[in-house]
């Protein structure tokens, strides 16, 4: 047992990496899926064990190659990173069974093994970003996950998928390069790449005195914001989500942007928060304004979309606005709301995109006019879809309500009444775009085109039902989501001086 237990942080990253290599050698789609499934199901066990350990005994620090930090690369798991690790790996595990049929349907035969190879590399990168305590190592993992994501997007059947992947590549690389410029400036200032060590070396005496540290903060903010699709840096997202294979959209919407948000939180609160009186810099105000703009503009654009996937993609941009709103509020309730919405949005958006994937599997179209009355043909799928939609709006009884409740509390604590009305107002716009779809799928007469549509096979239906059930469950029992987010937020705010 000693060979496994102390090395969990390394296994978390090494297993998917080795899995990717194994899949590349196997080149058989069935075997590739089996490996991907085994790895995906193993990951939440490791992440869960680590989170349990962190909650019981405090942060885990793992020294790669036994080199002590700050010289060696440190893998560091605290409450926040354990929380995000569990989310990413659990989403991967739940949605993986859906992939077999969906990928076989949408991706060419010869490319399916490579699809799973790229998925495992992407998983490696995402888990690596969250677990690493080294700023440069985070860049490498960021690029591992991004490069594999570009390939996954490009595997869509439509030729516009290629264009979307190319645009994503350009913007994603600019984002990553901005990030390492920021890290470079930090390294020049402090002489360290270890995140904890940087924070220790950036004493309060740095505040306001060094323009370089503000430049580093600006570069990292812009770079990471490009990756997490903060409005108005979201240009790559709608096309990438709309033309990627259905399953890729599910996985990306639930994990990739969330991990980038984790990185932003890590830099803002754990690293820069120590040096700069965070509340006095205009950074938070900028984030707040952009978040509110995202909530309204992206929601309004979503109202006018006829392609279901694209509508949900714009809705993602809006929902990311809620999460960054919590970061911008930078108080206990607000940050808890932002962090808990990372999980809640991941679950409900995964459910929604899975439903869209199931519709495409049966109907070969996700355009709204083609889907009239589909609720009567695919009742289970569309019920789960409806639950996800209610979550997006923030109806009481769904997890979306919990997030918005905490965000509104955070705004109350600051005395910003207007913000509370803005949160409610943007939810009403969400009600409009969601209501439009629900009206078409439930109340219209089914057209002849979807006459033979029916609920998809169990392997596709089960992940969907599980995620929809989670959306409801976390609306009532918030111990696992808001409870842990609350501890994480307390840790983060405790680091501020």
């Amino acid at each position, binding site marked *: 047992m000693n060979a496994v237990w102390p090395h969990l942080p390394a296994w978390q990253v090494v297993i998917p990496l080795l899995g990717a290599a194994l899949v590349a050698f196997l080149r058989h789609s069935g075997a590739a899926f089996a490996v991907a499934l085994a790895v995906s199901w193993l990951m939440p066990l490791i992440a869960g064990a680590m989170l349990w350990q962190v909650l019981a005994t405090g942060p885990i620090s793992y020294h790669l190659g036994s080199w002590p930090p700050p010289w060696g690369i440190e893998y560091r798991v605290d409450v926040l990173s354990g929380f995000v690790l569990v989310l990413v790996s659990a989403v991967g595990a739940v949605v993986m069974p859906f992939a077999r049929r969906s990928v076989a349907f949408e991706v060419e035969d010869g490319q399916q093994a490579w699809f799973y190879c790229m998925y495992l590399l992407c998983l490696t990168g995402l888990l690596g970003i969250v677990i690493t305590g080294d700023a440069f190592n985070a860049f490498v993992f960021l690029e591992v996950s991004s490069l594999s994501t570009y390939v996954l997007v490009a595997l869509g059947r439509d030729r*516009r998928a290629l264009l979307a992947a190319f645009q994503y590549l350009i913007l994603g690389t600019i984002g990553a390069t901005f990030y390492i410029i920021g890290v470079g400036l930090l390294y020049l200032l402090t002489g360290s790449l270890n995140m904890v060590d940087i924070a220790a070396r950036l004493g309060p005496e740095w505040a306001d005195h060094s323009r370089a540290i503000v430049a580093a903060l600006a570069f990292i903010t812009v770079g990471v914001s490009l990756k997490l699709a903060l409005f108005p840096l979201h240009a790559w997202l709608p096309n990438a989500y709309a033309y990627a294979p259905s399953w890729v959209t599910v996985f990306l919407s639930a994990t990739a942007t969330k991990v980038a948000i984790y990185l932003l939180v890590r830099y803002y609160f754990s690293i820069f928060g120590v040096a700069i009186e965070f509340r006095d810099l205009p950074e938070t105000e900028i984030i707040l304004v952009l978040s509110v703009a995202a909530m309204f503009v992206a929601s309004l654009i979503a109202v006018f979309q006829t392609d279901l996937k694209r509508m949900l993609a714009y809705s993602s941009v809006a929902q990311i606005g809620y999460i960054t709103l919590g970061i911008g509020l930078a108080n206990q309730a607000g940050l808890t709301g932002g962090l808990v919405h990372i999980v809640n949005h991941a679950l409900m958006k995964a459910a929604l995109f899975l439903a869209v994937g199931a519709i495409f599997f049966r109907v070969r179209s996700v355009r709204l006019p083609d889907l009239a009355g589909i609720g009567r043909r695919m009742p289970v799928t569309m019920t789960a879809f409806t639950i996800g939609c209610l979550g997006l709006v923030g109806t009481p009884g769904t997890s979306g309500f919990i997030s918005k409740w905490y965000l509104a509390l955070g705004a109350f604590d600051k005395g910003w009444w207007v913000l509370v009305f803005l949160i409610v107002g943007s939810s009403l716009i969400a009600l409009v775009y969601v209501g439009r779809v629900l009206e078409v799928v439930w109340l219209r007469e089914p057209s002849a085109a979807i006459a033979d549509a029916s609920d998809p096979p169990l392997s596709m239906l089960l992940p969907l039902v599980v995620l929809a059930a989670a959306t409801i469950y976390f609306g009532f029992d918030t111990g696992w989501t808001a409870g842990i987010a609350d501890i994480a937020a307390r840790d983060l705010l405790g680091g501020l001086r």
Partner: protein
Amino acid sequence: MPTLADFIEHYHYAITIFLMMTGLYIVVARGNMVKKLVGLSIFQTSVYLLYVEPAKIIGGTAPIIDPAFTVYSNPLPHVLMLTAIVVGVATIALGLALVVRINEAYGTIEEDEIFDMDRDT
């Protein structure tokens, strides 16, 4: 106030920033996808300079403990940039592969022409 002397003393930063802005401008301003990738490559190259320049000390050697040498260059940024170069190569390779596929699918690699084609269909 920064003076001319300051500027000359830190001329290597000026070169880095010039390369950075050149690269970024090409990415934004050019519609040809290969040129965009060239711009992206220049942009990334400027980062190598940003890291390596401050780490290199004139007359410094590799950090090997030996009584004959007292001045060392910092090896860490050099190694970091080896990694960044590999990432850059992978990015450009993938970008060019996508451009090849786009050229096969659309028959052009000019962005505005592709947008027009997609609008028509």
